[in-house]
C-alpha cells in the first residue's frame, strides 16, 4: 500500500497523520510538496489539516490552485482514494472535488475541543469498520467549519448517502444544540458521489492512540487499509 501526504506551506497536521498511519498500519507514508506535478501511483492521497497559505483569501482557496491539485483531480477520476481533513476538506471543496463550502463558524470562535459524531453511512471505504450510527468522540480544531451547500446539493447528499459524519451528543441526538459551528444539518464529513473522495472537519489522527486521550480514530484508518489491501 502506498500513501502520500501533501504538504502545503502552512500545513501543520502532516506529521500527526503520518504518525497515526504508521502506528495503525505499519506503513510509512511519503510526503509530497504541493509543487509536485509528477509522482508515482498512490492508493491513498491525504490533504492534511493546517492553514495552507495562511488561510489568505478564503480557507483552502489558494491551496486548491497549487500545482499538485491538477494531478490529484485527474487521479480522483481514476478512483484513487483521497482524504481531506480540516484544511484538507476546505481545499477539496474549493477545488470542487467535493460539493459545498466551509464558512466561518457561526459563533466566530476558533473551536478546539472533542465533540461527538454519528457515523451515518458505514458502507464506504472510509467508515466500514464502524457500526452504522456508531457514536464516536473526535477532536475538532477550526475557525471555518460551517458546512454550507444549496438545497439541491443537500438533497443529493442525503439521497446518495454521501453524509458520513454528523455532529451529535453522547446519546447520538443530532440537534442544533450539538452543532459546534452552524453546519447545515450538523454535517461534519461527506464523500463524493463516486465514493473515493472524503472530506471531514474532525481530526481522526488526533485520537488514534490512548496517550492522546482516545482511540476512536483507529477504525477510520483501519477501514481505509482494509479497503485498499
Amino acid at each position, binding site marked *: 500500500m502506498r500513501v502520500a501526504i501533501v504538504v502545503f506551506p502552512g500545513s501543520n497536521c502532516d506529521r500527526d497523520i503520518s504518525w497515526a498511519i504508521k502506528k495503525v498500519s505499519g506503513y510509512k507514508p511519503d510526503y509530497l510538496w504541493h509543487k509536485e506535478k509528477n509522482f508515482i501511483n498512490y492508493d491513498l492521497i491525504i490533504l492534511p489539516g493546517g492553514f495552507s497559505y495562511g488561510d489568505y*483569501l478564503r480557507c483552502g*482557496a489558494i491551496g486548491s*490552485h497549487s500545482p499538485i491539485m491538477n494531478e490529484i483531480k485527474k487521479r480522483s477520476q481514476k478512483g484513487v482514494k483521497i482524504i481531506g481533513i480540516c484544511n484538507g476538506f476546505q481545499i477539496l471543496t474549493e477545488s470542487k472535488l467535493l460539493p459545498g463550502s466551509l464558512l466561518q463558524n457561526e459563533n466566530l470562535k476558533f473551536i478546539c475541543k472533542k465533540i461527538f459524531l454519528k457515523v451515518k453511512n458505514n458502507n464506504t471505504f472510509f467508515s466500514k469498520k464502524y457500526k452504522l450510527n456508531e457514536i464516536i468522540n473526535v477532536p475538532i480544531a477550526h475557525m471555518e467549519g460551517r458546512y*454550507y451547500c*444549496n438545497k439541491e446539493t443537500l438533497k443529493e447528499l442525503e439521497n446518495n448517502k454521501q453524509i458520513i459524519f454528523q455532529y451529535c451528543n453522547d446519546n447520538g441526538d443530532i440537534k442544533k444544540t450539538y452543532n459546534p459551528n452552524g453546519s447545515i444539518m450538523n454535517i461534519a464529513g461527506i464523500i463524493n458521489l463516486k465514493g473515493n473522495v472524503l472530506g471531514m472537519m474532525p481530526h481522526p489522527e488526533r485520537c488514534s492512540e490512548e496517550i492522546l486521550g482516545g482511540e476512536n480514530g483507529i477504525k477510520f484508518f483501519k477501514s481505509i487499509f482494509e479497503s485498499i489491501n
Partner: protein
Amino acid sequence: MKVKIEVMLRDSILDPQGNTIKKSLNNLGFKNIKNVRQGKLIEIDMNSNSSNKDEKNIKRMCEDVLSNSLTEKYKIKFLKNK
C-alpha cells in the same frame, strides 16, 4: 489600469461578522441600522491599459480564484489610468 474588486457573501448566507459589527454599532448608540454585511476589497494593478482581453481575464480571476460562486458575489470596477 487599476481594477477594484468587491467580494461579498451572497445575501442568503449568514454573515456573523456583519451581525457582530451591527451589534457593536448599536451599543455605541447608532440605533438606526437595518443590517451590516462585511466583505473584501481587492485592488489589482495591471501592467497594460484597459483592453478587452484584460477585462476578460479579470472576470476569470474573479470566477476561478477571487470569489467562491457558491457563497460569494463580486463586483468589478475598472479605474482607467490618468
